[in-house]
């Protein structure tokens, strides 16, 4: 068999040609880079992410009968990936008592703020979010799944996905110093002016 990826070609383009060979499972290859990106956002560790992807590939391949043709394969793969991630995480927690704490501590420092939003700072701030918020933001904000899709994948109501994503965005804004400080202040001042105006008239 020829290698799936020709040199220099974008991985997506060549992966797609691989999917034409008949076995529907060959299509899994098309989603490998997305699976890695999702895994990285969950684990925050490239090595753990690749292990997670590897396990997901095996699970997907051997359980492919439970995939309904015509439905979203990427969503199906992401669901397997995240379920496996949570299972492993529970195990890890059970063993070490702390799956997230050490990582959070390493990142506790606020990103240096130089006026513009550096992507690295953003990635660091993102990594500090609780896993449910990271998941919601990656599925909806970055991967373009609908709230309904993401809800099905994460087994919670769409409203929960929405509020997780929104809480994640608020927290990111806070960590990155993007809060509407000035505007809020102006609003407060305006409000106070109005309030004090009323107050004075009452005096």
């Amino acid at each position: 068999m020829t290698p799936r990826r020709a040199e220099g070609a974008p991985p997506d383009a060549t992966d797609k040609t691989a999917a034409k060979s008949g076995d529907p499972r060959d299509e899994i290859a098309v989603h490998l880079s997305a699976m890695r990106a999702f895994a990285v956002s969950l684990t925050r560790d490239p090595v753990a992410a690749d292990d997670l992807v590897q396990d997901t590939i095996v699970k997907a391949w051997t359980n492919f009968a439970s995939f309904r043709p015509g439905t979203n394969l990427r969503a199906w793969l992401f669901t397997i990936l995240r379920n496996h991630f949570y299972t492993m995480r529970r195990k890890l927690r059970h063993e070490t008592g702390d799956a997230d704490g050490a990582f959070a501590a390493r990142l506790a420092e606020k990103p240096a703020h130089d006026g513009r939003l550096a992507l690295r700072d953003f990635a660091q701030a993102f990594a500090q979010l609780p896993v449910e918020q990271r998941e919601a933001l990656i599925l909806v904000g970055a991967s373009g799944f609908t709230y309904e899709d993401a809800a099905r994948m994460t087994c919670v109501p769409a409203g929960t996905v929405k509020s997780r994503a929104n809480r994640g965005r608020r927290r990111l804004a806070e960590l990155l110093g993007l809060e509407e400080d000035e505007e809020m202040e102006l609003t407060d001042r305006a409000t106070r002016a109005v309030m004090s105006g009323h107050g004075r008239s009452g005096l």
Partner: protein
Amino acid sequence: MFMAMVQDDQKKRMDQQIDENLRKVYQRTLEEEVPERFHDLLRKLKDQGTPE
């Protein structure tokens, strides 16, 4: 009322900015080359696998 609308607008713009950065960070990982071990694994599964 007006202030609330201005704030809503600002929030929306901030959310857009956040999502844009999110996509950029995500895209960066997407563009990384997929390790050959995954393709090897798929080949191995296919070779040993139950042909449909």
